[in-house]
């Protein structure tokens, strides 16, 4: 790898705090990392970019001591080290901020930060010392922490800062941030980046994992690109464009979700009216939600996760009972219908978490073909199922939707995320559908599969399908939707035309702020 040589040349004046050389990690049947080179210097933000499944997470787990590499070396401050557990890494000043926060909601910020590394006086937790140290940290890096607030009261961004403080509190000099922006809205991303700049100025090293190229170019000092488990290049943001980076990442052309001319008809296929779901403790989960989806229309829902998206999906699919409101499918009021009856009436479902909700991982593909449609002829039936016909249908889906697997007998667990998702989409779409509810249809799958999924959604739209699309990927929402709603706190706070809205305006609505200049939007072309 050429970047290894490049590192050698600069090593004299700027020694790497951490250096990974020739790392290879194999899992049974899979090489997750192959000959990976990566180094982080003092006072830099080093971004690691790559597609989902490219091996970023495995690499970080190796650096953090969760996995041991099969080949290659790790050096810290020039010393060769071996990490057996994350504790070894922490002891040498390497800390990780996980994508999914590991905080106890019912403890205070202070308690969460010191948990496991408590300053003590005698056998008691020394709150005064802890509070002082946390204040210091917070001031030095601009984290804005309130040590005595409960974590459950904090916003997502504030929780993330608590996670960062947790790592710093343990004396980390190298921070690994695993997809830190995935859960943030644009304004929060900016705030995070200014925190990162402060960390860098203080001489810490930040390893920043992402697949969002614009962010990486904005904040990183150097960028290492991983493709299929190997580092392909380390570049400087000043001399690289986002398109070049993307090509390094995927090795081919970029797909863009671009809906052709409108296919929306006047025929309302799904009407949701005044739907409300209350909660036993706290505010309503959904409040007075009303919208129509017409044939040939894709209605998108934007929102920070946890603002009612899951509940909305469950309300439409009949998985949750409503406290008020109606769901009408075509001419039928289906509010009281069971989930099963709605499915067989032609409502397809691509759930947000395919492992949890869409697949029987330990079952063969043909059984997965039946799931949800097991009472439909010819593969299913009122009393009996027909494995032979289910196998044939599964094979058909595999051909039509480019699901790469040995055959219908393959266990669903053996497929990659992209192939699993293509199979799920194939399963839903190969039935005569009237309405499709798609939640995060391209989450966690690679760019190639993403393009295929978008194509399918567009084809179905052209064929007259009414689609409800829920996504956290703004490009996807803006590119596919005919109408865009924003959910915040369980309410629809905006109805937007995706043709003239920017991520900034969307972001404002998503955080609950009404945009100051709600007037004409900027050029939407800057999305790319």
């Amino acid at each position, binding site marked *: 790898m050429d970047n290894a040589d490049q590192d050698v040349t600069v090593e004299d004046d700027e020694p790497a705090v951490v250096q990974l050389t020739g790392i290879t990690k194999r899992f049974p049947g899979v090489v997750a990392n192959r000959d990976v080179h990566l180094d982080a210097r003092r006072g830099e933000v080093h971004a690691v970019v790559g597609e989902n499944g490219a091996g970023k997470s495995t690499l970080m787990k190796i650096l953090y001591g969760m996995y041991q590499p099969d080949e290659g070396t790790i050096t810290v401050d020039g010393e060769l080290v071996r990490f057996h557990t994350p504790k070894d890494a922490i002891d040498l000043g390497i800390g990780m901020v996980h994508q999914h926060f590991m905080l106890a909601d019912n403890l205070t910020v202070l308690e969460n930060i010191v948990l496991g590394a408590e300053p003590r006086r005698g056998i008691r937790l020394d709150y005064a010392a802890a509070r002082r140290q946390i204040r210091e940290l917070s001031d030095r890096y601009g984290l804005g922490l309130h040590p005595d607030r409960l974590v459950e009261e904090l916003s997502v961004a504030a929780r993330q800062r608590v996670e960062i403080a947790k790592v710093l509190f343990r004396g980390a000099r190298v921070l690994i941030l695993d997809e830190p922006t995935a859960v943030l809205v644009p304004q929060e991303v900016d705030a995070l980046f200014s925190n990162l700049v402060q960390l860098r100025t203080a001489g810490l090293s930040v390893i920043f994992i992402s697949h969002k190229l614009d962010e990486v170019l904005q904040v990183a000092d150097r960028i290492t690109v991983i493709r299929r488990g190997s580092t392909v290049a380390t570049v400087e943001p000043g001399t690289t464009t986002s398109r070049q980076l993307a090509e390094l990442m995927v090795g081919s052309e970029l797909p863009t979700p671009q809906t052709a001319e409108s296919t929306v008809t006047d025929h309302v296929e799904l009407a949701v009216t005044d739907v409300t779901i209350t909660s036993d403790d706290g505010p309503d989960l959904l409040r007075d939600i009303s919208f129509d989806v017409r044939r040939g229309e894709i209605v998108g829902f934007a929102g920070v996760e946890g603002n009612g998206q899951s509940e909305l999906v469950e309300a439409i699919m009949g998985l949750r009972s409503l406290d008020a409101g109606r769901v009408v499918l075509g001419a039928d009021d289906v509010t009281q219908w069971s989930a*099963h009856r709605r499915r067989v009436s032609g409502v397809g479902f691509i759930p947000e978490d395919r492992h*949890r909700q869409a697949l029987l991982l330990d079952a063969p593909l043909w059984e997965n073909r039946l799931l949800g449609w097991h009472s439909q002829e010819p593969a299913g039936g009122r009393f009996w199922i027909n494995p032979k016909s289910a196998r044939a249908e599964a094979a058909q889906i595999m051909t039509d939707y480019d699901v790469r697997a040995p055959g219908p007998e393959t266990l669903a667990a053996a497929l990659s995320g992209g192939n699993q998702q293509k199979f799920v989409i194939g399963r839903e779409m190969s039935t005569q559908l009237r309405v499709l509810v798609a939640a995060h249809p391209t989450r966690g799958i690679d760019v190639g599969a993403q393009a295929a999924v978008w194509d399918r959604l567009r084809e179905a739209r052209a064929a007259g399908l009414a689609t409800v699309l829920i996504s956290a990927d703004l490009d996807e929402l803006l590119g596919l939707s005919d109408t865009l709603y924003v959910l915040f706190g369980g309410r629809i706070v905006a109805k937007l035309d995706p043709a003239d809205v920017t991520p900034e305006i969307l972001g404002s609505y998503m955080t609950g702020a009404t945009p100051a200049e709600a007037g004409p939007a900027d050029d939407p072309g800057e999305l790319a």
Partner: protein
Amino acid sequence: MTRLLGWWRRMAPTLVALGVALVITALFILIIGENPLRALAALFDFGETSVAQANSIGVWINRAAPLFLAGLAVSIGFRMGLFNIGVEGQYRIATVVAAGVGAALVLPAPLHVLVIVVAAMAAGAVYAAIPAVLKVTRGVSEVISTIMLNSIAIALAAWMVRVPFVDPDLGPGENVATRRIAESGQFPGLNELFGVIGLEEPRRPVHGFVVVAIVVGIVMAIVLSRSRFGFELRATGLNPFAATANGISSKAMIIKAMLVSGALAGLVGLPDLLGSAHRFQADSFVSGYGFTGIAVALLGRNKPVGIALAALLFAFLDRAGPSLQSEGIPPAAVIIMQGIVVLSVLVVDEVARRGMLRREERRARAQDPATVTEEVAR
């Protein structure tokens, strides 16, 4: 050929587990200072004379049939992750009710037996419905409620024998029992069949109900693999969230699975009741099939054929208890061996499952080299 290979792959872990269990039991016997080889010989000792051998086979069959039915009953719940620990109580209640109903009626032979069978299944299902309803409406863990209901079943059965179904003609000093079921309600034995195939006829009745058990097993095998109910059961067991999201109501499945499980449990006491006891009497009632059935279902991997083999194995070991004792080896060795078999099967199974997943991944990767499944790290 591939089918044979697949069958071998599924069987191999069990055979390994059996070998491991055998070795550990042998160690145990060594530790208590006896000769494991003599124990092994005693295991396969069916007796000197041909009558004794026929008797041994009879005992084996009589023991295997209820174990098979109990294992089947437990497996229905297991398939969807529902732990019906209450087969024990369900079959006790069902047997009392069957004995009471059977003695109260006199009908033409096949009809009489049919009525008794239906009564037993209904009683088992009703008793199993209690934990099901509790779970669906109040969220009560079926493990707790079925265990509790086992205790209640003992008292309830004792009351039923004493009050509604009691035999009024009991002599003084006789243990309380239900009235005897008339000849028309008894199930013919298999003893004569032994003669037909050239063996001696066993002295004790060999329960003909084993034939019904086999038929039930075949029906269940078809239902589980080919019916919508079987698919829904499997789907719910594999991934309850996905099942719910795809329109399979988990509440309905809990009720259905418990009812079927209870109905099958109702059959467990019938080989004995219809074949030789012909009345229910608390002292001579064979208890414990419900608990052993859990082990049988585990060993049989919740598949009817596997459960049949597991029941045969357990019954075979049980049958060897007395001959081990005559060799000076405590019959508890049998129970230890049964326990070790189940444990080693569970361990070896998990290892085999991971191996299979890896194989599948490799095959999938051969199709698409980009395949990096999210499961690999396990």
